[in-house]
């Protein structure tokens, strides 16, 4: 069975703002953890959040999670540690989460020492690193970085390792809010700060960053991890969930390019020879993880503005049209180009995309089914352009042209498409793309991540 002589870390959920049952948090606190935390970030929802500064989860959802965790941490006198605050861990995201913590403290009348570790990178110093040859490309990713790409980026972050967290713990911070961090780093930092070796500390973080996801049934819930010299143990804090050797082993597949080899700041975690052993019907012990030290590198993430996006959604139920859909859409595209020219808009001023659901809307060019098999087809038409005026104008042309373009054998002469909404045209938030995804070689693990302390 799990003993109590180890270092205990409590993760409340997979992401700050995803929520968790209060009873799971209480069950976790009853096991006397040495810290409580949650991962704040992910690139998974796409580039918009890093680009725009808007958080992935709502203020209300993040505040609810933060308030419960902060009160638990203060009551138990343990640190509350959160990496990649707000989603991307850029300055606007970190500042939003810090603002929520101050708001909760004011409401509760609580006081503590807080550290903010910043990960947003200044463009001038990134250019210096680039000129010094300290920025490299990844195996798969964008081409080599150049100064124009740095200039175009809305925000660029670097992904910190555990060292800045450990420094903040040394300085006595009870609440540590960090910008972009390697997902396991905040957890690895706490275990390593307690004197445990890197291998189990990092591997513990690999599970904790996803909350109770390594258990079955999956759900947004709390996970406790015990870290020893050469092992870790995992148990979900909700009685309805179980960690099994299979569920835990399979968690290593999640969002990683390899299930066995994890490249992290300062080293490589290798879990090839790990053994997964059930120590109860709900808890699993893992041994055999290895850590090899490597030159210190951190990942850079940046997003740039692409354009203003306008969309419309419609569908056709006409078998004659469905039978010649590709030709029809080519004709619509040509016609839109011609009509746009009349408005002074060249085809290079916009991108028009048809997402054809029922044909290849999900897989695009990788779809292997070549014919439409359904009785109806949904079309999402999208225009991205450098001004909202051009974007809206071209999308309106596309909508009208989809509706009224004639074709041989056409029976549905009043209109080709069913539009569910009025207005049919929808202005969405702007489109961004991940433009920076490179490796930087810092002089040390701290220099890119300044720490600010405040008495809350």
């Amino acid at each position, binding site marked *: 069975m799990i003993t109590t002589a180890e270092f205990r870390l409590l993760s409340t959920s997979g992401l700050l703002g995803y929520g968790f049952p209060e009873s799971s948090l209480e069950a976790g606190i009853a096991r006397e953890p040495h810290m409580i935390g949650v991962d704040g970030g992910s690139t998974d929802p796409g580039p918009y959040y890093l680009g725009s500064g808007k958080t992935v989860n709502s203020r209300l959802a993040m505040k609810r999670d933060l308030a419960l965790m902060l009160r638990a941490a203060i009551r138990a006198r343990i640190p509350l540690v959160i990496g990649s605050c707000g989603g991307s861990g850029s300055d606007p995201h970190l500042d939003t989460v810090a603002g929520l913590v101050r708001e909760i403290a004011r409401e509760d009348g609580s006081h503590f020492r807080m550290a903010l570790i910043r990960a947003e990178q200044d463009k001038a110093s990134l250019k210096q690193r680039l000129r010094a040859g300290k920025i490299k490309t990844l195996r798969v990713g964008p081409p080599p970085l150049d100064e124009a790409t740095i200039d175009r980026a809305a925000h660029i972050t670097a992904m910190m390792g555990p060292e800045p967290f450990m420094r903040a713990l040394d300085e006595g911070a009870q609440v540590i809010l960090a910008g972009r961090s390697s997902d396991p780093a905040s957890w690895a930092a706490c275990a390593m700060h307690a004197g445990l070796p890197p291998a189990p500390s990092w591997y513990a973080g690999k599970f904790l960053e996803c909350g109770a996801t390594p258990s079955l049934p999956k759900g947004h819930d709390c996970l406790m991890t015990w870290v020893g010299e050469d092992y870790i143990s995992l148990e979900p804090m909700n009685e309805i969930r179980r960690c099994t050797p299979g569920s835990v082993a399979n968690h*290593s597949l999640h969002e990683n390019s390899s299930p066995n080899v994890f490249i992290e700041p300062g080293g490589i975690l290798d879990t090839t020879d790990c053994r*997964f052993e059930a120590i109860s019907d709900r808890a699993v012990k893992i041994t055999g993880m290895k850590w090899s030290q490597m030159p210190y590198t951190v990942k850079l993430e940046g997003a740039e503005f692409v354009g203003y996006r306008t969309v419309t959604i419609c569908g056709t139920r006409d078998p004659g049209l469905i039978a010649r859909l590709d030709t029809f859409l080519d004709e619509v595209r040509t016609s839109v180009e011609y009509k746009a020219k009349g408005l002074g808009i060249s085809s290079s001023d916009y991108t028009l995309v048809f997402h054809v659901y029922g044909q290849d809307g999900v897989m695009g060019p990788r779809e292997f089914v070549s014919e439409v098999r359904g009785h109806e087809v949904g079309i999402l038409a999208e225009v991205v352009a450098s001004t909202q005026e051009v974007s809206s104008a071209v999308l309106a042309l596309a909508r009208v042209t989809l509706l009224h373009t004639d074709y041989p054998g056409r029976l549905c002469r009043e209109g080709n498409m069913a539009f569910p909404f009025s207005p049919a045209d929808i202005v969405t938030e702007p*489109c961004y793309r991940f433009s920076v*995804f490179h490796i930087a070689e810092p002089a040390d693990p701290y220099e890119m991540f300044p720490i600010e302390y405040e008495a809350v």
Partner: protein
Amino acid sequence: MALIRDIAEVCKSKNAGPFELTIDVVFADRKTYDKVAATRVLGPPLFAKLYHVKPEEVLFTEYPAGLAFKATLPRAVSSGDVGDTDVYGAQQHAPLLEVDIPI
């Protein structure tokens, strides 16, 4: 002969970062996993063909601890860029479902 959709416990896809897609096939027991592994059908050439990439672009791992096979390959368009169809990469597993394993 057996289709992946009929013999796998899990067949899923997801982003591994914004520029890569990772596809996992998991089997329920060691016997099935070993039989599938022995056919050598699952490997870089198959994923290269299904996902229109070069075999050398496929990072393929046999993962007996998880009774799983994993292939990671470049996305056609980076997550969320114009022309992307699947920001999370969570619905790119279908070509694999129809693969016939001679067991």
